[in-house]
Structures are given as C-alpha cells and as structure tokens.
C-alpha cells in the first residue's frame, strides 16, 4: 500500500523523488522513450550515481561529474550572449551541442540566458543585459540599488506580497509602474464596497500594464517551450536535467535586490530588529518558492545561490545572528518537503563550515568555489555532498594537464568514500573548451571507485 505524500517522512519523500527521476515521463505522461538502450542506461546510471553521492550511505560506481556554467555553453557554441538571449532556437541548439560535446553526467538546463524580449516588454530595470547597458558579448549584470527603502521594513513585514506588487515590482519593471495604484486584495470582503477595489483596474495606465503583462507572459511561454523542449530531448539521449527550481537565503533576498549590499549591511547596525523580523517574515515564502517549483517541474533539486554569507562578508557573529538561522530554516523546510537543497557557496565558505555540520546527513548538495574543499571534506564530509571546485581561472588559463592534476587531487582526497561530485566551482562565461573537456573526461576515466 502506497503512503500518501503528506504521511511520508523526509527520507521517504527523498527516496520517492529519486524514484520519480529514475522513471522519467514525456510531456504526455507516458514513460519517456529513450533514443537507444545505451542512452537509457546512461540516464539511469547518472541519477543513481547522483543519489548515492548525496545520500552518503555508499560509494557511487564512479565520481559523478558535471558542469554548471553560466554563459559558457553559448559562447562555446559560437554565439554572442545577445543572440543567446533573443534567439531561443539558437540558444537551445547551442546548449544541446554543449551537452553532447562534453557529456556531463547531468546538466542544469538552458534557462540561463533567459528571454531577452521578455525583459524588454516589461522594461526590466534591475539588470543591464547585452544590448541594454552592456555590450552584446557581455553577460547580464545586476544594477544594485535600494529598490526597497530603509523605512519600508514594516510594509514588507506586514504583507510581503502587497509590498512586492505595489512597491518593489513597480520599481524594477518600468511597465509595471502603474501597479503602485492597485488596491490590496485583502480588502475584497463583501457586497458593499466590493467594486471599489476594482476601480483601479479601469484606469488606462493600469490597463496598459496588464497589456504588457499578457504580452510578456506569451513571450515567457514561448521561451519556456524552447528551453523545456531541449531538456526533453537531452533526456532521451541520456542526459538528465535534475534542477527543479530555485530559492534564496532570506538574507540574500533582502540584501541582493531589495535593500542592496550597502543597505542591508548598514541595516544590521541601524535597524537590526526590523531586519531580523523581515528575515523571519519571508522565510516561509522562500521555502514555498522552492517547494512549489519542485512540484511544478517534478524535480527535487532546488538551487540556492548564496552571496552575502561568504567569508569576509559577515563576521562570525553577524553570520550567526542574521544569515544562518533563516537560511537553515529554508534548507530544513525544503528537506521536510522532499526536496534536495543545492546551495552554491559563492566565494569562500571556510569559516562557515562549522555551521553546516548542523544539517541532517545525506540531504543536501553544496557547490563550493574558493573554499578549501579538502579541508571541507574533513569537517562536513559526513554531513553533505560536496560539489566543485575547479576554479574559473584554471578553466580559462591553465593547460588540460594542470586541470587533470587538480582533478586527480580532488578524486584522491575529497572523493574518498563518496559524497563528492566533480564540477566547476563558480559560474563562468568563458573557458578553454579543452580544459572543460579534461575535467569531465579525466574524472570519468580516473574516478572509478574501486
């Protein structure tokens, strides 16, 4: 008798999620038709290898290897980043070439560049992107600012959705500026007065915003079909995408795009209580963001790019007070819901490893960049699966032999006993293809566990 999802333990949910990954379906809900028995075997082996590495109970047949780049697949395929953002067919064709040429065990999809035209329709102001503030060859880059003002904490804490719709989104999307006129939905209560709440929707600027929204939605869908299509095709060829969605550490949510780096750093001194209250207020929202995405995509890995908790960015005390408590809650909430949190500790995380030891064993995957991962293995090797950390500089500037030497060192040390996935440490737009190839091929050859 099968248990209901709600009755399952976190262990059982994780197991069920892996079983789902192991028996993939096509968009019609039927068993996925692989293009060859070999493709099917590769697919199953990749998922099994990943599962064993994450659960930390056994050693996988060999060290799993993957590539989690930023814009490299597209520069590699010979297009500039503007083309990757505006020509969806070329974007996914380039991504397919990347996966088939390098053959990583798993991949993370072609969603990186995103739909250029969509950003234009909504007049997205939070980023500069190729042709809009940076050269066609540059990747998109965040335009940091205080999109949330210091005195707006109470608004965010009281009703985050209302705050986002009426304050934050109108500031970061030019086309949604009229949303600042919208009434709270929670005022729609009974017959008397119900129509008052709908008056703003009759105003021409608001109607214009909704027109842009419909157009943007259609564009996003068009892009999603292309990106989803290549995922499906690559799966039939034996290359699974396991990424279910993304969420963030609450401190980064507020610090990256709401208050900005400087804003949140100063808030720790000037209004610490408000900041702590806001972090708690958005924690369940960050958990649900991940759980919802996993449910929608049917994939359990929830990516969490971690920014402002890196070594040097906060003191131990600040990390312990402001960053870690709500990040930990998000991670535990995702695990409870059957997801596999996949945080990327950008920068160094050497001083934070002692905190990570508190996490439940065999439930998370951590991408490390400039962290000493040989040391990390000793501290958190029994807690979490380590992912990384071939440096960007090495992929760009070294020789294939140097890359192999580095990978050998990782396999001999960090991969001992399992719990390790070979990959790049940070997101990269450029690299010598032969170096990326060396990382993958050498790991497949040398990384067979005895």
């Amino acid at each position: 008798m099968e248990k209901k999802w709600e009755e399952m333990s976190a262990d059982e949910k994780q197991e069920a999620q892996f079983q789902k990954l192991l028996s993939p379906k096509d968009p019609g809900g039927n068993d996925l038709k692989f293009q060859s028995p070999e493709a099917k075997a590769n697919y199953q082996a990749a998922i099994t290898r990943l599962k064993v590495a994450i659960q930390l109970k056994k050693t996988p047949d060999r060290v799993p290897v993957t590539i989690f780049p930023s814009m490299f697949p597209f520069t590699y395929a010979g297009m500039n980043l503007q083309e990757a953002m505006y020509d969806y067919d070329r974007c996914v064709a380039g991504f397919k070439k990347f996966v088939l040429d390098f053959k990583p065990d798993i991949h993370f999809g072609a969603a990186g560049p995103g739909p250029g035209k969509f950003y234009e329709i909504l007049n997205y102001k939070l980023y500069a992107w190729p042709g809009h503030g940076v050269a066609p060859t540059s990747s998109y880059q965040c335009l940091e600012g205080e999109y949330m003002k210091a005195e707006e904490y109470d608004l965010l804490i009281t009703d985050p959705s209302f705050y986002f719709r009426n304050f934050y989104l109108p500031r970061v999307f030019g086309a949604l500026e009229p949303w600042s006129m919208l009434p709270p939905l929670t005022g729609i209560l009974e017959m008397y007065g119900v129509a008052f709440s709908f008056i703003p929707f009759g105003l021409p600027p608001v109607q214009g915003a909704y027109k842009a929204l419909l157009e943007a939605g259609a564009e996003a869908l068009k892009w999603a079909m292309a990106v989803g299509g290549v995922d499906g095709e690559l799966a039939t060829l034996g290359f699974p995408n396991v990424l279910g969605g993304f969420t963030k550490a609450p401190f980064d949510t507020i610090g990256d795009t709401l208050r900005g780096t400087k804003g949140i750093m100063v808030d720790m001194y000037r209004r610490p209580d408000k900041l702590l209250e806001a972090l708690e207020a958005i924690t369940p929202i960050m958990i649900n963001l991940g759980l919802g995405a996993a449910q929608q995509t049917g994939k359990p890995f929830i990516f969490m790019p971690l920014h402002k908790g890196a070594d040097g960015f906060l003191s131990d005390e600040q990390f312990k007070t402001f960053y870690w408590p709500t990040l930990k809650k998000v991670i535990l909430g995702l695990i409870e819901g059957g997801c596999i949190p996949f945080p990327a500790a950008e920068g160094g995380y050497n001083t934070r490893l002692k905190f990570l030891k508190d996490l439940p064993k065999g439930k998370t995957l951590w991408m490390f960049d400039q962290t000493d991962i040989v040391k990390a293995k000793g501290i958190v090797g029994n807690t979490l699966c380590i992912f990384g950390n071939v440096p960007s500089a090495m992929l760009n500037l070294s020789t294939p032999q140097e890359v192999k030497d580095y990978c050998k060192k990782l396999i001999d040390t960090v991969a001992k006993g399992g719990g390790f996935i070979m990959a790049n440490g940070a997101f990269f737009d450029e690299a010598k293809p032969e170096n990326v190839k060396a990382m993958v091929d050498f790991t497949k050859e040398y990384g067979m566990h005895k």
Partner: protein
Amino acid sequence: MAKDLVKTLADLKEKEALKIVEDRLSAGEDPLKILDDAKRALEIVGKRFSDCEYFIPDLVYAGEILKAITERVKPKIAKGAEVKRIGKVVIGTVAGDIHDIGKDIVVFMLDVNGFEVFDLGIDVPAQKFVDKIKETNSKVVGLSGFLTLAFDSMKETVEAIKKAGLRDKVKIMIGGGQIDDQVKGFAGADAYGKDAMAAVTLAKGWIGG
C-alpha cells in the same frame, strides 16, 4: 571634555561619534582637526579589517558614519585648506564588467588612507585608463573585475598601458571575485590583492607613506 572621537568612531558608535563632532564644532574647534581624528579612526578600522576583527559590513558602516561626519564638518572648512595626499591611484572596473561594490570599497579605503583616487567607474575602456594615467601622472593603477570576461579586459588594459609607453611608470594591481595570482600572471599585472586593505598595503608599498 567630550569623549574620544577616534575610539568612538573606530568602535562604530554612530550616534556618539556624531554627537562628539557636533559638540566640537560648536565649541569652535578647527574642523580639519576633527577630520584628522576621523582619518585616524578609519586607519584603526582598516587595521581591524586586516586582523579579521572587522569584516566588510564594518567597513561599509564606517564609511557611512564618515560620510555623515564629513557632511557636518565640510561647510566649516576654510577655502584653500586641503588635506595632504600621499599619492595618486587610478582605478576602475574593466571593460565589459559593471560590478562596482568591491571596487567602491577599495576606493574608499584608499581614500581614507591618504591617497588621491581617480575612480573611472565601471565598464572602463583601456584607453580611458591610459588617458587618466597620463593626465594625473598616477603611479598606481587598480583594475577591478568580477566576471571571467574581465580576465581578457585586464590583459588588454595592461597591454594598452604598455603600448602607450607607460608600463614602467606605473604599478598595476588587480582584484575581484574570480581573480587570483594566475590571472595576475595572465594579465601581466604586478600584483593581485585579495581585499581592500591588500590594495592599501600594495599602494603604500609602491608609493611609500
């Protein structure tokens, strides 16, 4: 006598520090003396950062307090009175890259440590660095970058400086998220600095002071 501004500011006590500044101003004290104390306090902040006692938020907050102090003190400074500078530094985020948080912290720490900093901003073409070096006669150049594409931009900038015949006249330091000693070698720079205080140490080592 009011409490010690140097200690209060170095300990990042914003309200107390501003109160001391206002008291001293209304007592008719030389505003340059107040700025001098503030500068000494920021040197302590920088040292605490180097000693891993302070972290980036402490630098940022110290900068905010200093800004508030300067706003109060500046209007009272007599025209012509100037703070002595120990040397000039040209700095910017290289072409194609628009990240500025790290660079801004470096600019701030160089500034409070006595350098005259010419901040060219973000996405700076190589030629603009060359022009500014010529114009200011700066001895130190700082190149910042966060993306992997910055590796090439840094190399191109160093080459442009070389082509202009200025390579022997300047020392070039680089820094940023994915930058390391290997990138330094690739770009042909003189040094890689891990953080803002490393930049100060490098610049002081090259210029003296």
